[in-house]
């Protein structure tokens, strides 16, 4: 397949791997931010291609993993209402809240639907005027523009039955929180290529300068990732810390200005809780006051939900790269894809699920 197979070419990937072996001396950890990258790394078993002195640490960029239990509980609570159609992305259905998940709500006869685009949720609202349609908006800067667009579209159509349950997160504040954590020892960062496609590179230039860390905008195919690692290792070996774009077929320094404008038009930045990590200042999005009528949290009573995190789950430490899935006593035992304790075991982009599926590092 054009533009895919080229980036999965055995010979080319091997050549970059040999180049890494040639330049790499220091014992270092490099973090790939995005769960999609973690998935590729495990799916293609990258360890075979890297020298032993390089450790890849898996970052918090899995939207399903970092969505806090409290808001999942709100989604489940909304789904349980007979006047509500709860709509979300497929991945989100399996993530456990305090009690149950959205798939179980669906099994119990509740109207839970999955879509590929939030605009399909707007269409559902238009087709079902007697129902209140709530779109559970998760994800990072990547999904924020289409989530914003759905609200604008609903407003244009004069819909009074479309709501957003907003759990959109922002990546750079989370990176800063990680860099400020003394237990996290990362020497280089592979930034998520699709987030950079939307937001550009300027935010990362500030972080690279502030924390003296190389940040490489990296794609998701094997060749993208190994090239990103090569660039990071090269900079670390030479004590440089620059932002370099290794995903130039999609990313520009300015990013997608139209998408950024959509986000600014509809959302304000706000403090957000990240699952397993805690509240990070200005790390998420909420609907602006002028879109009050579309805000699920402001139009439904969602109090009185008792939030419970599963015990014996170290998702927080996994998401910050402080521990690997195999370090968890529950991994592969009481926690597996059929019976996940925490979100990283649920999503294909979650580190625990990727380790379980592709490595089977079970006790």
């Amino acid at each position, binding site marked *: *397949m054009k533009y*895919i*197979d080229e980036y*999965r*070419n*055995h010979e080319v*990937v*091997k050549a970059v791997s040999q180049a890494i072996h040639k330049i790499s001396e220091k014992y270092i950890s490099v973090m790939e931010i995005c769960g*999609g990258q973690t998935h590729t790394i*495990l*799916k*293609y*078993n*990258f360890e*075979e*291609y890297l020298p032993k002195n390089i450790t890849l640490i898996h970052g918090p960029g899995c*939207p*399903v993993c970092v969505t806090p239990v409290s808001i999942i509980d709100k989604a489940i609570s909304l789904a349980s209402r007979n006047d509500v159609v709860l709509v979300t*992305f*497929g*991945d*989100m*259905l*399996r993530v456990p809240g305090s009690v149950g998940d959205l*798939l*179980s709500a*669906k*099994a*119990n006869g509740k109207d839970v*639907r*999955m*879509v*590929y685009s939030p605009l*399909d949720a707007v269409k559902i609202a238009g087709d079902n005027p007697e129902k209140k349609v709530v779109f559970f908006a*998760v*994800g*990072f800067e*990547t*999904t924020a523009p289409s989530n914003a667009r759905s609200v604008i579209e609903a407003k244009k159509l004069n819909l009074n039955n479309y709501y957003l349950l907003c759990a959109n997160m922002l990546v750079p504040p989370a990176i800063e929180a990680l860099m400020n954590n003394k237990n996290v020892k990362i020497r280089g960062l592979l930034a998520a290529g*699709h987030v950079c496609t939307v937001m550009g590179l300027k935010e990362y230039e500030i972080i690279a300068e502030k924390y003296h860390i190389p940040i490489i905008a990296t794609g998701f195919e*094997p060749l993208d990732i190994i090239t990103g690692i090569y660039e990071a290792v090269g900079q670390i070996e030479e004590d440089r810390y620059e932002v370099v774009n290794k995903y130039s077929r999609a990313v520009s320094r300015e990013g997608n200005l139209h998408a950024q404008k959509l986000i600014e038009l509809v959302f304000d930045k706000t403090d957000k809780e990240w699952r397993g990590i805690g509240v990070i200042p200005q790390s998420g999005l909420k609907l602006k006051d002028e879109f009050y009528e579309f805000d699920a949290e402001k139009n439904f009573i969602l109090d009185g939900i008792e939030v419970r995190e599963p015990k014996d789950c170290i998702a927080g430490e996994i998401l910050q790269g402080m521990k690997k899935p195999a370090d968890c006593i529950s991994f592969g035992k009481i926690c*597996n*894809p*059929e*019976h996940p304790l925490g979100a990283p075991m649920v*999503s*294909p*982009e979650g580190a625990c699920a990727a380790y*379980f*599926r*592709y*490595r*089977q590092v079970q006790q």
Partner: protein
Amino acid sequence: MTNKVQNNINGKLNCPVPYSDYKKILLAHGSGGTLTHELITKLFVSQFDNPKLNVLHDSAVLNINGSKLAFTTDSYVVNPVFFPGGNIGSLAVNGTVNDLAMCGAKPLYISAGFIIEEGFSVEDLNLITQTMRKAADLAGVEIVTGDTKVVEHGKGDGIFINTAGIGIIREGIEILPKNCKPGDVILINGKIAEHGIAIMSKRQGFEFETEIVSDCAALNELVEEILNATQNIHMMRDPTRGGVATVLNEVASSSGCGIFIGENSIPISEQVKGACEILGFDPLYVANEGKLIVFVSPNDAEKVLNIMKNHPLGKDSAMLGIVTADNPGKVIIKTSIGTTRIVDMLSGEQLPRIC
């Protein structure tokens, strides 16, 4: 009769292990992955327990008055009922024909049970039965008995069809996972994942423009040609729900052998690959309805591959991999970048990714 008394009569405990950790059935229990297997082994097999069932083949193989018969049943609940390349009727006939053929049987007779929702279009029903007749004629089987039930509006999804079938197995043919041996070559009769993606492309919320059509077809004629050419077919299975990866895992686990496949040798069309990339699906787990995976001893592999390639349903046939003595019970893939990893059984349905 209480359970306790019943247990004493049976001479064993009814359910020695909890048969499910779930209080309710989830869609994932029907996905063909690990939850389906858990349900089948812990609940159905442990209750119905008998040597013919416990083989867990596509059909039961029965010896009746000196004849070897294959007997199978399957229910069809596909949504949408009409899809590119077929409809629920062609699936219902071909699926059961294929389940019989995978045991090496010549399919003979089929039953058809219809569960129809009140309000379903008679014109659509007519179209479906026409398709069934055509599919049966093509496969050389007769639909000889049937049943009709109508349920209230809202109690069904338009139409469900159950078909059962019987076929006769020739002397000397034994197709079983345990017959697989290290060195056996694994062949497939064409491009994978077409049925699953064709269906997905028409589901509400996921409509995308594509020319991908379901591969739905009866495989019995192709199977007969293969079985006429060699006595060294050790195992066959059609990778329907759960896809190629699930079949390979099932065979690895029941044969105690390892399986090694190459990512670059998996036949797949550009459109299907593209759709899978967009949705975040691994095509190895996507359903097929006109594919079969053949395990053949190495000496006859080339001959069988040629027969498959010369058949209309096998022009894109390819060698998927080999059976190994290493890694017993596991499926290993050589990735396109030259590394190796495990191909696991999927735990639930593949869900489209977020970004």
